[in-house]
């Protein structure tokens, strides 16, 4: 790096200080959440949530473990929805984007225009709700969590289309066509493997969007058997008594007497964010890439 001027050094120090403050601000709320979840319930009631409990307690996690029927179910639903939604999204986006780069196919420009139009105007929540609810009847089905809004949008299509256009040599596709390979074969065996970086980015962003989604549940799911983990958290927010009521409905272990609701809610939130926190550091570069590409176009 060579010699650093005095100005550089001061600037560097200020930069480190600001970054440390911001990092702390990012992490501290999660620490409060976690510490609250391992605090004795009574202490929370008397002294509120804190960073360092006088009395540690794993009651909340024990409770979750005992009530795994409800929570585990929500967890399973979230996993299925995330998996199905992300897989479908990657497939649909790749197939559409592949079509959009075939300039020799008539009508492609019109199709692209139709995709662009979806980014400019939308009918809004009410008509969308009406279509899914009254025409497609997705209410209280798993499709109510998968289909509305999250599956794909014009933005991801443009990202993938641009990647296909600029990073996959047209000669390669032409050569395969001359060899008599059919289009599906070319896409799945040739193009998609070469486009792994962009597909991973799109997949990861879509996956996190599914994992974090609670709005589709809010609109389309009233049956608690189909609650996702985020919707479960949201419901508890709306009604702290929810778990108590539900546990007795489920005929689970008798917990009605001393329901550790304050800490349990925090513990469920910890369990809900765990997968994202665990995978995130390994895929950080894909997230950063997704953001950067959005800046170029979108």
């Amino acid at each position, binding site marked *: 790096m060579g010699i650093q001027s005095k100005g550089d050094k001061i600037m560097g120090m200020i930069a480190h200080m600001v970054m440390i403050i911001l990092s702390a601000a*990012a992490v501290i709320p999660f620490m409060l959440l976690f510490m609250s979840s391992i605090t004795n319930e009574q202490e929370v009631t008397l*002294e509120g949530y804190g960073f360092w409990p006088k009395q540690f307690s794993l009651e909340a996690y024990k409770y979750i473990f005992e009530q795994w029927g409800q929570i585990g179910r929500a967890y399973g639903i979230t996993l299925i929805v995330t998996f199905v939604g992300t897989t479908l999204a990657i497939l649909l986006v790749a197939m559409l984007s592949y079509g959009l780069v075939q300039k020799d196919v008539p009508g492609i420009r019109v199709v692209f225009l139709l*995709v662009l139009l979806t980014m400019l105007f939308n009918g809004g929540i009410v*008509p969308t709700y009406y279509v899914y609810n009254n025409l497609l009847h997705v209410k209280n089905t798993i499709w109510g969590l998968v289909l509305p809004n999250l599956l794909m949008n014009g933005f991801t299509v443009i990202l993938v289309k641009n990647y296909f256009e600029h990073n996959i040599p047209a000669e390669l596709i032409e050569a395969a066509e001359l060899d008599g390979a059919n*289009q599906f074969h070319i*896409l799945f065996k040739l193009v998609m493997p070469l486009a792994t970086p962009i597909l991973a980015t799109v997949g990861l962003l879509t996956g996190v969007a599914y994992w974090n989604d609670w709005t589709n549940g809010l609109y389309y799911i009233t049956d608690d058997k189909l609650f996702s983990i985020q919707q479960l958290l949201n419901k508890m927010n709306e009604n702290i008594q929810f778990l108590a009521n539900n546990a007795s409905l489920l005929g689970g272990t008798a917990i009605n007497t001393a329901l550790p609701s304050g800490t349990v*809610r925090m513990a469920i939130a910890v369990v809900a964010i765990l997968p994202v926190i665990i995978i995130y550091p390994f895929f950080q570069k894909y997230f950063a890439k997704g953001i950067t590409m959005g*800046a170029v176009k979108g």
Partner: protein
Amino acid sequence: MKTKKKLHWKKIGAVYLMMFPALAYFFINNYLPMLGIVIAFKKVNYGLGVLKSPWAGLDNFQFLFSSGSAWLITRNTIFYNIGFIILNTVLGIVIAILLNEIQNKMATKVYQTVILLPYLMSWVVASYLVYAFLGGDTGFINNTILPLLGSDKTIAFYQETKYWPFILFFVSQWKGIGFNMILYYACIIGIAPDYYEAARVDGAKKWQEIKTITLPFLKPTIITMVILSIGKMFYSDFGLFYQIPKNSGMLYSVTQTIDTYVYNALMTQNNLGMSAAASFYQSIVGFILVIAANAVIRKISRENAMF
């Protein structure tokens, strides 16, 4: 020649077959609801369905605008969006510049990773985190901070409006700053180092480098981002305004935006007409703003325009 033509038809068929599922999705998810905006002009009767329901003319709109809600939700939506545009741009750039001053690549990476973390959390989880601080009985501020400051009273955050503009701005920055930082940082590291070296040879100070090199290079991105945000001026982040104030009715005067209003009218008051009218109002004004914003981008820098 003949075989080539036949092959070509085969290809056209295959390509359209491939595109079909995604196009069908866009038709259902985006195009059908566009037609559904007629709901705003109908007096919907669920038994009859939208098409057969009687027309209501502009009744739904009249109701919306005469109730005073329209003004309130428009004012709130625009007020917060202006604040967000300023904060996102200024803080995003300042912090990206600072991040770029850090020489240790490992540290840069760690900071980026940690600061982006809140961005990946759902608004539900964010509301839990905020509640842990602000909650009336068990919140950290009421139980620990205020007593430390020697105050013996507690603040009912979820009932008092005066704190909420600050809370919402703070929470939105807490969650979004990593995103904005990375966005502008990516542009800064794209600037060729030659410019800075030349400036150094000329004896430029740090501040001069930022003013004469970094900021001019960021200008196109800043313009695009700001104009895009202006295009979205009538939209608000439903999660932020619904989850963080916990949809508390006492706070509506400062937290209700068009999006939360549409939700409440539709799902809690079951007032399809009102909700559709507000949603229509948002879509139309939003559409005009997007078109206008794009026209402005086209004027300034063609290659950044969306269409």
